[in-house]
């Protein structure tokens, strides 16, 4: 059966740490950093369960700032 | 109506016909006495079927002026007309247009105020027209017609100046000029500019990013004070150039004059008759009629002040232009004001009496 592999790339400097992508991800791939901040001082979204991402793009769709690019690869 | 034919019509009607003929793209207005014939004439002429000019009766003067803002921001030749209380409502939009540097024509057929006032003619909006009216440091280019012919002629001139300086221009008429019928030769037909011409001539306008050019933004907003000061300084620089180049006035019997009357619009017509009457009595008096109220003919007034013994400002108000005359003269000779209020047009002999009384 084909499996979907996904990856997200977060534009860290554009991210405001609103957490909406984290909530939107059905597979809990993303989380906000707890210590690291970007130049504006925001904790930013990053992948914590990268292997489970299917590239559904829910995170990117709800992101108000267009910070997330999503890639998807289908593997037979 | 054929080209270059002399005809009889009201000043308000002349504005409407001239607008169609000078290639105006859009008129947005709201009824108010004594200027409603502008919109009525346009509606009757149906220019949307001939030149393609848009004519729209808006829901208010506030909407009218903001339609003008939108149209002007898209590079089109657009106008509105109203009378004093309506012009008060438009001040927000006028200030925004001055701030965003947009060319447009606003016609004010003045009536007496303050408040709802009267529908009779007055010149009591001189301050409002020339000293800002709305908020912020800005000027309108203000033309004061004193005949129906000038009502017709100034439409094209006002558009020309508005586009040259990217600033709103105002025709400051009054109920007498608006309602009065006089013979007039309408300007020749000039086609509306094509969309291609507009895009070429107004590269700043929001016409859509045709050809993939960078977006154009029309705004009067800038939150950074340093930038806002630069914007203001550039606008002021434009005003200084306008003051240098665009002053217009008329002189009448000033060569041998010992006294001068200054008056604009309808008041200048009364003044001319007064001057004829005074001269019949042996009083050597002449007229300086500012055609542009802003820029004001300051230098001409100063030149006049070096020749005459006194200046009488005749206005249909409590004394507004007289302040600019006094500023120009700077106290060298007496400058007096004579005016009637409430929509009353003074008799020429009243003016002669005032002249005798004051000097």
């Amino acid at each position, binding site marked *: 059966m084909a499996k979907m592999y996904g990856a997200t790339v977060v534009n860290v400097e554009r991210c405001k740490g609103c957490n909406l992508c984290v909530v939107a991800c059905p597979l809990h791939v993303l989380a906000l950093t707890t210590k690291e901040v970007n130049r504006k001082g925001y904790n930013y979204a990053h992948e914590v369960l990268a292997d489970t991402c299917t590239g559904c793009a829910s995170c990117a769709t709800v992101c108000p700032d*267009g910070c997330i690019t999503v890639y998807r690869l289908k593997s037979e | 109506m054929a080209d270059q034919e002399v005809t009889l019509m009201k000043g308000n009607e002349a504005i409407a016909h001239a607008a169609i003929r000078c290639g105006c793209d859009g008129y947005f207005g709201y009824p108010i006495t004594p200027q409603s014939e502008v919109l009525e004439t346009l509606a009757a002429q149906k220019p949307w079927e001939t030149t393609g000019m848009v004519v729209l009766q808006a829901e208010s003067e506030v909407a009218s002026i903001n339609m003008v803002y939108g149209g002007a921001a898209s590079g089109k030749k657009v106008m509105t007309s109203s009378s004093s209380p309506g012009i008060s409502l438009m001040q927000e939009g006028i200030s925004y247009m001055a701030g965003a540097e947009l060319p447009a024509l606003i016609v004010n057929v003045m009536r007496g105020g303050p408040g709802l006032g009267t529908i009779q003619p007055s010149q009591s909006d001189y301050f409002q027209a020339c000293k800002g009216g709305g908020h912020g440091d800005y000027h309108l280019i203000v033309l004061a017609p004193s005949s129906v012919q000038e009502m017709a002629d100034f439409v094209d001139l006002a558009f020309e100046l508005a586009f040259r300086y990217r600033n709103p221009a105002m025709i400051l008429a009054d109920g007498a000029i608006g309602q009065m019928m006089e013979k007039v030769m309408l300007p020749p037909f000039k086609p509306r500019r094509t969309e291609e011409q507009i895009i070429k001539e107004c590269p700043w306008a929001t016409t859509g990013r045709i050809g993939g050019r960078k977006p154009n933004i029309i705004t009067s907003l800038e939150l950074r004070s340093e930038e806002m000061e630069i914007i203001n300084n550039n606008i002021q620089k434009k005003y200084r150039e306008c003051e240098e180049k665009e002053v217009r006035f008329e002189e009448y019997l000033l060569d041998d004059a010992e006294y001068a009357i200054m008056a604009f619009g309808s008041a200048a017509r009364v003044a001319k008759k007064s001057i004829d009457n005074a001269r019949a009595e042996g009083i050597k008096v002449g007229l300086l009629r500012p055609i542009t109220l802003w820029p004001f003919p300051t230098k001409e007034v100063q030149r006049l002040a070096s020749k005459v013994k006194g200046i009488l400002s005749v206005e249909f108000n409590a004394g507004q232009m007289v302040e600019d005359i006094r500023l120009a003269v700077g106290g060298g000779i007496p400058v007096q004001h004579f005016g009637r209020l409430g929509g009353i047009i003074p008799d020429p002999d009243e003016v002669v009496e005032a002249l005798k009384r004051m000097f």
Partner: protein
Amino acid sequence: MTREEIIEKGQVVYKKPTLLNDVPMHYCPGCSHGVVHKLVADVIDEMGMTEKTIAISPVGCAVFAYKYIDVDWQEAAHGRAPALASAVKRLWPDRLVFTYQGDGDLACIGTAETIHALNRAENITIIFINNAIYGMTGGQMAPTTLLGMKTATCPYGREVSLHGYPLHITELAAQLDGTCYVTRQAVHTVAAINRTKKAIRKAFEYSMQGKGSNLVEVVSTCNSGWKMSPEKANKWMEENMFAYYHLGDLKDNGIDSK
């Protein structure tokens, strides 16, 4: 399969809209404006209207919309955007003309301009962000503020005796003969966002087809003004705003007409 492989060999399934430029938006973290901006940018691009769009921005939080979406913009005085749009569309009939306004701008100071532009059947679209508060000025009561809702100018909650009722301006718009398509959407979930995008596309298409005026209300959050986290604001909106502002199409005359 490594992350690098997926990025290298995979397809891009989502990226920032081409028309949304790189300038960081000034909106608060989690603000609905950003989502709607993305949708508007995508729809203009997908319709191939980039070169033919003239947009009107309001006064309020979205005043700087012109900094973010790469089309021609005019910035209107408070509430007057529909008047500008009316003139622009009449003077440039083949352009896509829309306004983007908030509740204070559209439903309060600009009520007259809104109602009359819609009722004149101007072939424009009004995108209406309703977050029931004045965001830019610091969270004051809006005409759409819910009863009981606390704002800076009704700190004890909106009361009928003091402030009257929240205004159902979208229902009012649906009653007007001039409107073609009137809808109320939201952008709190992926499904809702997709529906809103379809609604914006439909409204833009109707306006280009000359079918009359279109109003797309987006019930939105103002988490700063509401003093909640973005996540909580979405929940609060679902529980409170949707009860008063029901989602869905209120009118769609575009389907029947040719």
